[in-house]
């Protein structure tokens, strides 16, 4: 046992060239320096990409485009729908707007416009300006998308009047009455 212990305690002779060989090998390795963000962005590097990645990227871009168009068509209404329809006719083909006649009897009015969900509540929208047909009758026939809409007449740019012939909407959020219209697709 003592002999074995003595043997293990005795130092192992190491060649003096070993240190030099190890340090030489270390110095030959490529240096890893911590680059700043700017250096990372501006230093030329070789990027390796699996061929499958291009497929994943293409699919993701398609999803991106579809998502974008869906949100755009949701929020921007008719403005974006023609674009979506042109690009994806088989995916989204909403019913064409129907022509609807709006009539209001307002003998003392100088100007009557229709405002509603279908025109962004814009009283200056040219397609929804009613014409005086005589005898105090004002009317306009304008395109309205298929669906449920709230609307009202604006008389002389100041007086809000619900359509007396249409279903009423009970919302007094802004203190002025509205009417409802349900436009259905023509068959």
């Amino acid at each position, binding site marked *: 046992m003592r002999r074995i212990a003595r043997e293990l305690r005795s130092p192992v002779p190491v060649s003096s060239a070993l240190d030099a060989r190890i340090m030489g090998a270390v110095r030959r390795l490529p240096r890893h320096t911590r680059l700043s963000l700017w250096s990372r962005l501006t230093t030329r590097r070789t*990027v*390796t*990409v*699996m061929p499958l*990645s291009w497929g*994943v*990227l293409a699919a*993701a*871009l398609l*999803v*991106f485009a579809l*998502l*974008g168009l869906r*949100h*755009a068509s*949701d*929020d*921007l*209404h008719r403005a974006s729908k023609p674009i979506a329809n042109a690009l994806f006719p088989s995916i989204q083909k909403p019913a064409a707007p129907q022509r609807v006649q709006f009539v209001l009897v307002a003998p003392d009015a100088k100007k009557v416009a229709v*405002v509603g*969900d279908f025109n*962004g*509540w*814009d*009283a200056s929208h040219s397609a929804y300006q009613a014409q005086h047909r005589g005898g105090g009758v004002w009317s306009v026939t304008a395109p309205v998308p298929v*669906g*449920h809409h*709230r609307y009202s007449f604006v008389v002389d740019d100041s007086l*809000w009047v619900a359509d007396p*012939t249409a*279903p*009423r*909407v*009970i*919302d007094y*959020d*802004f*203190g*002025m009455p*509205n009417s*409802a219209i*349900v436009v*259905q697709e023509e068959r």
Partner: protein
Amino acid sequence: MICLGRVVAALLLVAPAALAQDARLSARLDKPTLVAVTALVDSARGAKLPTAPLVDKALEGAAKGSDGQKIVTAVRQLSHQMGSAKRVLGSNAGPDEIKAAATALAAGVSEHDLAVLRAASGKRPLTMRLAVLTDLIGRDVPVATATSLVVQLARSGVRDQDLALFQRNVRADIDRGADPTAAATTRARGLVLRPASPGTKPSE
């Protein structure tokens, strides 16, 4: 290899937010109102609710000259009502049904009655039925009576165009001085007793 997944994920996260801003809102609302309304619209989008009615509500408020606080309150309330409507009508409900149902809830129809009308209508769209129901309530027919009549008409498989005619007749009767409840009840009875039009199918 640079992870393309991270790039793609970043694109998908940024896109909806960037597109969310409605140019019409920016043009018609002041900055604080715009920020609040945009947040509500984004939140509704996250909950898979239709966002166009919220934008329309804000535009309506702006057109009517309401102050920002009122606009935000109205948009928030509509968003809440659409959430309730969607919960009751189910995930298959279309945007118009959700919008019409939210209007009906605002008029005083209960969620339970909405569910009863949904069940009575089978797979048929509810939009016209809800519009007529809301109109009856607006013409002073009590909510319970109006709901009961419309549910009855739905169970009888009355078509949308007949419902529209029913609404016009009730309005005309009321305009001529009839009691709203009597007018609605009488016209509904007449519609239910009338022989079905060709092509009319009983409700599913």
